[in-house]
């Protein structure tokens, strides 16, 4: 090969390589890929963010907190951000799926409820790994046109009542065990020992003939109510009831005598993300007035940043979402990381579903 040809070849290769690198960096700089809950990437507030920041947002939805780890364990660098609940955040940190968040780049982090920003679940070895976004409860819900006011359920026992046979649903999640434990009067639902877990399992197996279907996504529960299949179930407070109200299906949420679980979701950054710039833009948007009220208005969940919420919510909404009432949050059984016990919970729940 002549020298000239060699040189030409070399420069062509270099140029091709350079243009590839350029193209890929230009492509990846302007986007953020979320692995999140339905409603956390809704156009009602994300569209404006996309226009202002130049960051294209794409989202994949999960149906349960147990879906985050498998998706990340499969690898591939597909996602930039995830939004697990407070019982799952620690696992993400310990498994090395997420990276530290530089709070100096998130100026309004200090405005977040201290109970959340200092929570053990998102702080590890003195570093911050999550930006609290939203919180709420797991209340129960029933159809008011099928269950009369006089009969209005107040206890979890209603979910074991044979008169609702075939009209009961529960979330396809380990939280079913929390429900079963509480109905039997066991309140330390996050520290169940093997005996208590077995009892909860047996209680759920006893309930199976009454259950129409275990719901796995928000959309599925809405369909089950709308199609007349289900009259009573647990729900993501504020979310499905709003969607059902739009469809003119009359439902009412209630906090049972046995108490309700509480949850708090945080945005976390997936380790090795190539889209750091957009990720931080998204984090800042999420806890601003735009993100907080965007989330609350669409989902019906409470906001993590009371300063922003105060500015963008009406006083009625602010009160309704318990933003001025920290005691309410304390009354909820806030989800906690189950640690190595998680395996026993998921195994018990699988055993319930497998049982005849």
């Amino acid at each position, binding site marked *: 090969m002549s020298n000239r040809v060699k040189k030409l070849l070399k420069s062509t290769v270099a140029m091709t390589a350079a243009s590839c690198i350029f193209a890929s960096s230009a492509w990846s700089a302007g986007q953020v890929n979320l692995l999140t809950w339905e409603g956390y990437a809704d156009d009602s507030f994300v569209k404006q963010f996309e226009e202002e920041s130049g960051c294209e947002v794409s989202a994949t939805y999960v149906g349960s907190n147990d879906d985050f780890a498998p998706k990340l364990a499969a690898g591939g660098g597909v996602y930039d951000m995830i939004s697990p609940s407070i019982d799952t955040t620690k696992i993400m940190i310990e498994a090395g799926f997420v990276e530290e968040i530089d709070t100096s780049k998130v100026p309004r982090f200090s405005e977040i409820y201290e109970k959340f920003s200092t929570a053990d679940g998102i702080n590890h070895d003195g570093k911050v790994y999550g930006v609290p976004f939203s919180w709420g409860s797991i209340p129960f819900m029933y159809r008011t046109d099928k269950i009369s006011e006089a009969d209005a359920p107040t206890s979890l026992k209603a979910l074991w009542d044979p008169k609702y046979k*075939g009209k009961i649903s529960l979330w396809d999640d380990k939280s079913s065990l929390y429900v079963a434990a509480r109905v039997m009067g066991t309140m330390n639902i996050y520290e169940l020992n093997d005996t208590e877990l077995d009892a909860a399992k047996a209680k759920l197996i006893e309930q199976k003939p009454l259950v129409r279907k275990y719901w796995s996504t928000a959309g599925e529960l809405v369909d089950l109510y709308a199609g007349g299949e289900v009259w009573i179930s647990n729900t993501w407070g504020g979310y499905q009831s709003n969607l059902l109200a739009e469809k003119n299906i009359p439902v009412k949420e209630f906090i049972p005598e046995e108490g309700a679980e509480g949850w708090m979701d945080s945005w976390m950054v997936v380790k090795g993300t190539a889209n750091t710039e957009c990720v931080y833009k998204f984090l800042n948007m999420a806890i601003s007035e735009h993100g907080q009220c965007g989330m609350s208005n669409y989902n019906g969940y409470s906001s993590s940043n009371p300063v922003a919420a105060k500015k963008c919510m009406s006083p009625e909404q602010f009160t309704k979402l318990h933003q001025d009432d920290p005691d309410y949050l304390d009354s909820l059984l806030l989800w906690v990381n189950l640690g190595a016990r998680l395996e026993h919970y*998921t195994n018990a729940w699988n055993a319930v579903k*497998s049982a005849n």
Partner: protein
Amino acid sequence: MRLQTRKRLAAIGVLSPPLLWALVFLFIPYLIMFTYSFYLKKFPTFEAAFQFGNYAQLLLDPQYYQVLLRTAKISIMVAIFSALLGYPFAYFLVFKIRSNRMRALLYMAVIVPLWVSYLLRAYTWKTILGSEGILNSFLVTTGILDKPTDIFLYNQFSMVLTLTYIYVPFIVMPAYASLEKIPRNLIEASKDLGVRPLRTFWSITLPLSTPGIAAGMTISFCLTFGDFIAPILVGGPDGFMIANVITAQFGAALNWPLGAALSIVMLVVVLTIISLSDRLQRSGKLEIA
């Protein structure tokens, strides 16, 4: 180049793409799965190891063989019902329809649903069988029932019904092929010898079409055995099947080793069924010769 060498090279050229495909996309993944089945679950994920704990767990914890038995029961029911519907239809097409065009039309009518996504067809059954679905509305408006019933959807009945509907074409196709191949003079000879039609069917038609039925039933059994969509869409609390357990192990439980061990068990069951059916199909062929 010598002719033999050239032939050999040509053979390699033709065969190597499919062989490579099988190696990369089938054998290596099976091997990886087999390796994983000996790994050890360790919170929060799992680590490489060589131990038989996962297989021991499958044997000791009743939840796994309960689900395996249920899956087998549902698969057998689907295979039998598909055959009971598909075989008479194929028989009717081959022996009773005189017009070729009519036969082609009816054959297509069975095959066409295969062009529609499985998901969509399963979903459609929901709108038919639901509490406020088409079937219930019909039964209530005609006065057969005074109020809608829950018994059609979200149970094993709706799963067997949906899966049978989906797998009937898989019986019709091979049954049709094997019935069509039966030499007509055998049946005519039987008739000439004064044998009644039913007897002719039992001693000639059915044995000679057994390979087709066996092939069809094997396909519908194996596909049902690995199905996880029907339990999600139309199954109820008692509809959890083995593929759902595997999904749960690879998903929520984050126990890939146990999921891999379950997959291996499933693979063994399916391969056993296939080799048994293969033997049956070959025995049918021998009778023709």
